[in-house]
């Protein structure tokens, strides 16, 4: 028996935790990258503002994407409702209101992480302490995932955890591709070329994927291969295709899944059928936009079906078996 309201909170809890981890990882990798890049490079913290989708709001409050400004805005500024502390508060609030169904140990870890982040937030302003802070955040998020995986029944509730996590993950991967590729793909600035590899490596790093890429893709780090890997690989946890597969598995275990499945199939086809070699030379941005819209569709269908208790008219999904078969 799973309450609609609980399913919704669990889903958003997982999304928030994943968002916190992703933000920490992005900051950490950019931190590394900055140390490697020549001073002349334009690269700074601006791409992070774009990736996290906060640009419009950010520039309402700040003129420049300076390290300090970006760090404050991403981590602790209440004007940014997607900032790390707000996401943690969101995760905590969702967990707090559904504590009855989560293992106690998860609540303890999240509480710890929340207190840690509040007490140590000033550390993110200096490069030296930033690393420690972000690493702790990432580790704690993994601890939460691990505790959920190891001590929570893998029942329907858990499917909502997985769905929240995977949809947030897919979303972040698409953002990283969008912004990084924008800067990396079309331009062939000779002077910056040596650093192109580093930047592609950083794309993989920000998604914790470099090591796996090297194992599975037997070529050196190259733009189109990285893109193919992050979009279409079936095994890498942060590849969009893999995230969508996870969603598919989750939905299979849930009742009344027709409408979300329909939206999912559309996203899967979009990603699997993409011609990466063509995308790198042109409409990548538009393509990523389509992927994000497809993810939004899945989210809307999950919301309507499971969280708002919409009654489904079977007629609308009359041709569904065919759609599924051709996916």
């Amino acid at each position, binding site marked *: *028996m799973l*309450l*609609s309201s609980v399913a919704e909170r669990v889903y958003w809890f997982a999304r928030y935790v994943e968002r916190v981890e992703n933000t920490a990882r992005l900051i950490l990798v950019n931190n590394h990258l900055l140390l490697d890049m020549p001073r002349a490079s334009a690269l700074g913290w601006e791409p992070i503002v774009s990736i996290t989708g906060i640009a419009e709001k950010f520039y309402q409050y700040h003129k420049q994407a300076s390290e300090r400004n970006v760090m404050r805005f991403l981590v602790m500024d209440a004007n940014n409702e997607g900032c790390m502390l707000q996401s943690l508060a969101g995760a905590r609030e969702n967990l707090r209101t559904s504590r*009855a169904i989560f293992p106690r140990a998860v609540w303890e870890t999240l509480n710890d992480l929340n207190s840690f982040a509040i007490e140590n937030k000033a550390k993110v302003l200096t490069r030296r302490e930033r690393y420690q802070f972000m690493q702790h955040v990432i580790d704690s998020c993994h601890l939460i995932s691990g505790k959920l995986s190891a001590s929570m029944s893998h029942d329907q509730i858990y499917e909502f955890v997985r769905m929240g996590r995977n949809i947030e993950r897919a979303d972040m991967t698409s953002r990283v591709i969008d912004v990084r590729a924008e800067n990396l793909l079309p331009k062939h600035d000779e002077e910056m070329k040596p650093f192109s590899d580093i930047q592609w490596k950083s794309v993989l790093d920000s998604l914790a994927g470099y090591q796996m890429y090297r194992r599975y893709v037997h070529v050196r780090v190259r733009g189109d291969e990285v893109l193919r890997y992050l979009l279409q690989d079936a095994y890498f946890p942060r590849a969009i295709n893999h995230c969508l597969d996870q969603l598919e598995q989750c939905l299979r275990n849930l009742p009344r899944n027709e409408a979300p499945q329909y939206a999912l199939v559309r996203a899967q086809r979009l990603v699997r059928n993409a011609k990466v070699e063509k995308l790198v030379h042109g409409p990548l941005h538009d393509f990523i936009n389509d992927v994000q819209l497809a993810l939004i569709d899945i989210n809307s269908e999950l919301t309507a079906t499971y969280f708002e208790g919409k009654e489904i008219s079977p007629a609308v999904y009359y041709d569904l078996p065919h759609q599924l078969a051709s996916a």
Partner: protein
Amino acid sequence: MAISWNDYSTEGAFDELIGPSGRARAGAGKIMQYLRGLNDTDLRERREAAELAMRVMGITFTVYSHEGGIDRVWPFDIIPRIISAREWQTTDEGLQQRVQALNMFIADVYGDQRIIKDKVFPEEVLAQSVNFREQCMGVKPAFGVWAHICGSDLVRDADGTLYVLEDNLRVPSGVSYMLENRFVMKRVFPELFEDYSILPVDGYSTRLFDMLASLSPRPADFPTIVVLTPGIYNSAYFEHSYLAQQMGVELVAGSDLFVGDDDCVYMRTINGRAQVDVIYRRVDDLFLDPEVFNPESVLGVPGIMRAWRKGNVAIANAPGAGVADDKVVYAYVPQMIRYYLDQDPILQNVPTYLCVDEAQRAYVLANLDSLVVKPANESGGYGMMVGPAATKKTRSEFARLIKKDPRNYIAQPTLSLSTAPTLCDGHVEPRHIDLRPFILSADNRHVTRGGLTRVALKKGSLVVNSSQGGGSKDTWIVETGGH
């Protein structure tokens, strides 16, 4: 410097651990000795460990007026309160007797009203009770039980007598702190549990579940039970969530439930609707059903009273059970015990003066400086006056209030309230305490082993409520081996 018991002065009150001669009371010797053996660092470390455990476990309560963070960690004192198993045995029996009579009274009030016809209980007291719900007349809940969960507050006066101060029959809270306090103590003082034979408190959640399950109107092995909460802004939300978790049942808000065309209660789930059999509600009567009570309520479920009256769902505590949770009605509990059970009360009532009675009112008004005046229906320590501590202005204000609405006020002698050693800034000082055991009733009854000991952390204060500077202690019922 470690704890020195020589400096500990009980100041005329009854101390739970230390007798008048400075010697440990039965069962308290080992803990005193143990504490004496701890140095300042040890003590500080234990206190910090307990605080950390509380914080990590997220044991909180909520304060309405406290802006910013709505959660506060519940202050906890690491020195346990000790009661001998022998004394507890009598208390347990007394509480069972009391709750049985109270339930018979509530059933009678909503049924034939024999007690009124027999002139044991005055009709006008009932007529003026704000917790009497006409909508409950004629309803016959399972086993004739209305107050399934009762939290009775016990206090000990200077001579050592235990009195019942009040019976909370609406939505009594605090049991989760009782359970969590024990959990924290086991983390912080594991070695003490080896020396002592302490009666366990763990079984409560299971008992509560079994009791609720026995109320199900549908004969099924696994009835659907829910805990209905007003939501996260309620001061006891932590407890609602905790109990649901411990029982493995759903924690629901009013918006999760609805009443179908068949007058059954359903909850919204990812599978569609699912029928609910038993509701452990932590929402006040008046917010339970906007169709019947407060039409503005968004906490309740429209039609739920209809479903309950038809017997399609069980509600614990039953709507209307609060009629006996009234300080005027309280004064009649000894008579109820004699009337319904033909027994003498095992536990004492605090002598209570009813302002509605002319002679008693005159006495109260003449003795405001020595009495405690309480409104009949408030809880949480709000709206009361402690005579000896009150200013002249407050006393005259209360005199006015009493004359204006005598039915709404009662007065009691100021009890000195027993004390227990409490850690205050590294020293041990006496602080006043009370005790709230919980009594479960359905086809049979169960009393918690001890209960929640609340402590007034401010020096000399008699107010133990969490909303007003109170904290809590673990309560140990110990086998003292034939003392």
